[in-house]
């Protein structure tokens, strides 16, 4: 489960998550369905305490999905993540307006390539069980939800239910 738990107060702005994510986009390009090579899909704003971790929480009920007029943002039940399909994105900025975590980031390549969308977001590291940012985080500010804590209590409950059933089975 690649969903992420984020605790901004634990972040010391070391930036390892950014390096891991950006490097990951290069290494995993091709293996991921939405890779922007070399581009970190999260951002740390300011060392000002606490730093703001602009990273998708993959909300169970996601405001960005609710508002996406082109249905480019969708919750993918199989991977439990919120996915962006750039081919459907019309660049309306509605998701930018709705995300309380500021997790939609400007696409540095926006307007200059075939992926002519103004935004990028975390792709949850695709099928990989441990998101690279969480693996690289030394302070526990970003954790993989598999650690038992996630951003969304509903997703957590659902996972607990799934685990419970698995154990009984």
């Amino acid at each position, binding site marked *: 489960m690649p969903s992420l738990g984020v605790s901004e107060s634990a972040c010391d702005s070391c930036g390892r998550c950014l390096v891991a994510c950006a490097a990951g986009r290069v290494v995993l390009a091709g293996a991921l369905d939405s890779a922007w090579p070399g581009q970190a899909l999260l951002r740390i704003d300011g060392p000002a305490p606490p730093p703001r971790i602009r990273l998708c929480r993959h909300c169970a009920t996601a405001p960005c999905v609710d508002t996406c007029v*082109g*249905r480019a943002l969708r919750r993918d039940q199989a991977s439990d993540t919120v996915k962006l399909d750039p081919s459907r994105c019309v660049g309306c900025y509605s998701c930018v*307006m709705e995300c309380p975590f500021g997790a939609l980031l400007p696409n540095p390549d926006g307007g200059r390539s075939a992926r002519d969308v103004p935004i990028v977001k975390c792709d949850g590291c695709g099928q990989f069980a441990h998101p690279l940012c969480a693996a690289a985080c030394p302070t526990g500010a970003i954790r993989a939800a598999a650690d038992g804590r996630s951003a969304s209590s509903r997703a957590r409950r659902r996972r607990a239910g799934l685990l419970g059933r698995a154990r009984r089975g």
Partner: protein
Amino acid sequence: MTSHLIIGLNVAGIAAMKAIREIEPGGRIVAVSAEAQLPYSRVLLPRYLGGKTTPESMLLEPAEFYEVRGTRVFWGRRVVSLDAAQRRAVLDDGETIDFDRALIAAGARPTVPRDLAGPGVTGLRTGEDAAFIRERVRGGARVAIAGGGPVGVKTACALAELGVRPALIVASGRILSQIADNEAAFLAQRCLEQRGVEVRLGADIVRAVRGPGGLEGLELGDGAALPCGLLVVCKGVTPNVAGLPPAVQGRSGVAVDDTMATRVPGLYAAGDVAEARDLLDGQPRVTAIFPGAAAQGRIAGKNMAGATAVFEGSIPRNALDLPGLPLISIGRVGAPLDARHAVRVTRTTGSYRKLVYRDGLLIGALLVGEVMDAGLLQACIRRNLAGLLAAGEPGQLMGEAG
């Protein structure tokens, strides 16, 4: 098993359908859709007009979504009467549907002043409207757009990109008067004008001049004549309340509480027809925006299916993607000049940012050019407005942003 009726199948109706299915898998859902084609994103109509999107990519859900066991959709039909006591709806072809709970998500239609309505005058709310406009434009008709709000501006922009050079007729002294201040409106207007839109501010349409060939032009308040063969009216929407029991009706739409329930047990409402609580002043009001419809529909669906969900209230907000100039407006963006309010303005080359505070709390944000912080700001505004409301100190209505 509860029997659910969903009247109107667009953003709110679909969100309710999903919520009901999630809670009651296999539950019985009957939906009535006024349009015969698969529901699509109305917000994208200006883009469609400008040839920038296709009907397929406008679909809210694929066809399979509606073909689930337990779900039945009446396409191209309308509910003409809703009997709350009998829990029975009658369709325009006489068919009756019995239900336990019903969601009124019938949406709204463009408000077209009666003295303008007639040949050559349309709103932009359906694919049919868009097709009509395209056909007229192809025929070489000169186009005027009435209304300088987000829909009028987007429509003008889309037509300008087709090379049409439309006239945008705005009653107010600036475009986007409800969501922008003078400076932001100026930036947006310049963007429109650079693309070939002729903006007429402070202009009233007195009369539509019609001849044997249909619409020939408009007579404006200052006596000027504006020749045009097509007028697109983008002056807000009117909730579709025809056929609904009087008991559910509010000031203009359907009155709902925070669970999206109407005053009549078993009847719910969501989306552009619903008067839900506005966080700015705590009063019920139709806030016809896409994300609001999705949230309200989901909450109504959950409550209809027996779960408990509460709507946290609407914040007027809008994202506008003018070419090269995104604009986002959230909450109260015009502040009265008094001791309790303060504004902070930041300008850079190509961007303008205004934050509005009330007693030191952020209650509004207007971002032009650089908008990437909008979501963070909305979360803050939402928290503050809910807090003010809970403390019995609601903000006030915006009126025209100042």
